[in-house]
C-alpha cells in the first residue's frame, strides 16, 4: 500500500495542476468575451501582506457593499423583490410575519451575473468626496449571461459572475432620523466571484514605481488633486474569468 499510496498522492498533485492550467488556458483561448479599460478607481492596487512581493488588483464597484450600507436609503432601487425572486430567492413569507427578519437575514448568498456600467461621468468633479469612488456601478443582475448581454450590448457594460445577497432592511425616516415602521427586501451585489486579479510579471514593472497601495494613496491630499495613477486593460475569457492585458501610468492631464 505504501508505494501505491505515495504514487497516487503524487499523481493527484500532478493531475490537479494539469487540470487547473488547462482550465486557465481554455479561459484565455479565442477572443475575450469582454475588454474594458479601467482606472485605479475601479481596479485598486493591493498587496496581500507586508513581506509579499505579489501584486493584485481588486475590482471596486458602487454601491460598495458593507453591513448597514443601505440603511439610510429610501427604497430598494433596481434590486427589488421581483429581481430577487428572479434570481431564485424565495420571498413568500410576509414581511409582517414576526419571524420575517430572522428568516430573511439568514438567507445565504447566491450566484448571479452582475451588470456593471462603466460611466466615466459618475462621481465626477475632482476634489469632491466622490472623486475617488469607482465609476463601475451595478445596474442589473440575472442568472443568464446571454440574456443580459442582449439587454446590455454596449461595451461599457461589464457582465461578471458575482455573489448577491438578500437584505432585509428596516425603513428609514429621514425626518426623524430613526427607523420607521415596516421593512422591505432589497438585493446587493456583495462580491465578485473573482474579485482579485493578479498582476502578471510582464506588467509589474509599470506599477513598480507606485509605493503606496490604492487605499493608502486615496487618503493623501495628492489623490484629491491628481486622481487615479494608472489605467488597466482588463479582459474576460470564456469562463468569465479576468486577466490583465496591459497597464499604463496616467499623468494628471490624461485623467478624464
Amino acid at each position, binding site marked *: *500500500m*505504501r508505494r501505491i*499510496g*505515495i504514487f*497516487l*498522492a*503524487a499523481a*493527484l*498533485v*500532478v493531475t*490537479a*495542476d494539469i487540470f*487547473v*492550467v488547462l*482550465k*486557465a488556458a481554455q*479561459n484565455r483561448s479565442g477572443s475575450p468575451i469582454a475588454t474594458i479599460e479601467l482606472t485605479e478607481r475601479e481596479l485598486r492596487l493591493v498587496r*496581500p*501582506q507586508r*513581506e*509579499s*512581493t*505579489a*501584486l*493584485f488588483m481588486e475590482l471596486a464597484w458602487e454601491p460598495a457593499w458593507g453591513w448597514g450600507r443601505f440603511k439610510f436609503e429610501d427604497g430598494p432601487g433596481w434590486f427589488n423583490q421581483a429581481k430577487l425572486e428572479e434570481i*431564485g430567492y424565495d420571498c413568500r413569507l410576509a414581511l409582517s410575519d414576526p*419571524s420575517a427578519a*430572522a*428568516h430573511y*437575514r*439568514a438567507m*445565504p*448568498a*447566491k*450566484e448571479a451575473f452582475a451588470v456593471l456600467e462603466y460611466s466615466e461621468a459618475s462621481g465626477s468633479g475632482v476634489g469632491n468626496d466622490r472623486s475617488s469612488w469607482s465609476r463601475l456601478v451595478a445596474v442589473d443582475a440575472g442568472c443568464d449571461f446571454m440574456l443580459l448581454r442582449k439587454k446590455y450590448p454596449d461595451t461599457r457594460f461589464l457582465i461578471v*459572475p458575482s*455573489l448577491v445577497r438578500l437584505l432585509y432592511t428596516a425603513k428609514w425616516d429621514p425626518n426623524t432620523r430613526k427607523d420607521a415602521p415596516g421593512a422591505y427586501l432589497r438585493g446587493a451585489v456583495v462580491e465578485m*466571484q*473573482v474579485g*482579485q*486579479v*493578479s498582476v*502578471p*510579471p510582464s506588467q*509589474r514593472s509599470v506599477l513598480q514605481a507606485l509605493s503606496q497601495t490604492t487605499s493608502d494613496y486615496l487618503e493623501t491630499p495628492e489623490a484629491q488633486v491628481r486622481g487615479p495613477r494608472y489605467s488597466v486593460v482588463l479582459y474576460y475569457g470564456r*469562463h*468569465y*474569468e*479576468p*486577466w490583465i492585458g496591459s497597464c499604463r501610468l496616467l499623468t494628471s492631464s490624461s485623467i478624464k
Partner: protein
Amino acid sequence: MGESVDKRDAQQRADRIRAFREELAQLEDDGALSLDAMQRATLESHLQQTLAELAKRFDVDTTASQKQISWGMRIASTLGGLALCAAIVLFFQRFWGVLGVPAQVTVLVVTPLVVLAATEFAARREQTLYYGWLLSLVAFGAFVLNLTVLGSIFNLTPSRDALLAWGIFGLLLAYTYGLQLPLAAGLICLLSYLAAGFSSWLGAHWLSFPERPENFLLGGVILITIPGLHLQRRYAEFDWLYRSLGLLTLFLAILILSEWGAVSYLPMRQSTVEMIYQVIGFAGAGMALWMGIRSRFAGVANLGAAFFTLFLYLRFYHWWWNWMPGYLFFLVIGLISVGLLALFRKLRRRMVGVVRP
C-alpha cells in the same frame, strides 16, 4: 500519532509488562508474593528479552519516561510541521514578485512532490514516524498552497473541487503511513466538500456552506457509520477519529440549530425548528453516552456527556436567566452540577475496564 496495528499491539504489550513489573514490586513489598532468586532471574530475563525485541522491531516506549518524551516529540513534530508550512507560504509570497509565471507554476508543482518524496524517505528510515508525521503535514500544506496560489495566478473562480482534491490527498497520506493528523485534515476537507455540494444543490453559493449547519449532517452520519462497517480492519486505530469527528460535527450542527432555527432548511417556524433540534440534541447526546458506555468507547461517552451537559445548561439559561436573580441562577447551576457529578461518577464506575479509546 498513528501507528500500524502491529505497532499498537506491541506498545500495549510493553505497557502491560511495565505495569506488571510495578505491581510485582508492590506485591513483594506488601509480602503478598515472594519469588526465589531462580524464578526472579528467569522472569526478569524473559521480560527484558521481550521488551528488547519489541523495542527493536517496533521502536516502542519501554519506560514511563520514554513515553513522556515520545509525547513531547509528537507535539514538537506537529509544531514543526505547522512552522514549516508557514515558512513555505511566506517564502513563496516573498519571492512571488520576482518569478515569471512558468517559474511560479514549476515551484508550486514541485514543492509538494519533493516533500512527498522526503516523507517517503523519512518513513523508510524510522519506524516511529516522527519525521514522517512532520513532513506529511508539510506535504498537505504544500498541496493546499499549490492549488490556492495556482488559482490566484490565473484568476480562477474558486471551486469546491479543491476541497475534494485536498481531502483525497490527506486520506492517501494517512492510509499510506498510518498517520492520524493528515486523516483529520482530509476528513474535514471531505466534510466541507459534501456540505458545499449540498449548499450548491439547494441553490446557494457553495462558499455559503458554513451558514447552514444542516449541510454537515449527512457527512457527520457517514463518518460515524464507517467504523461500524468494519471496512478498515487494518486501520482500526483510525476508528475513534471517524467516530469523534462525526459526532462532533453532528452535535455542533444540532447545537447551532437548537439555538438559531432561522438557519434551518426546514419549512417551519423558527421556534418549532429550535424545539425539534433541542429534542434531537438531548436524545442524541444521551444515546451517545449510553452507546459509549455500552460499547466501551470512552471518546464517544465523553462527547455525549459534554454535549448533554451543554444542551442542559443552555436550556437553564433560556428558562431562568431573565427572571431569576443572578446569584440564585448560579446557585441552581452549581447544585445541578453536583447532581450531574454524582450521576457521571456512577456511570464512570460502570466504565472501569475500558480498553478502547
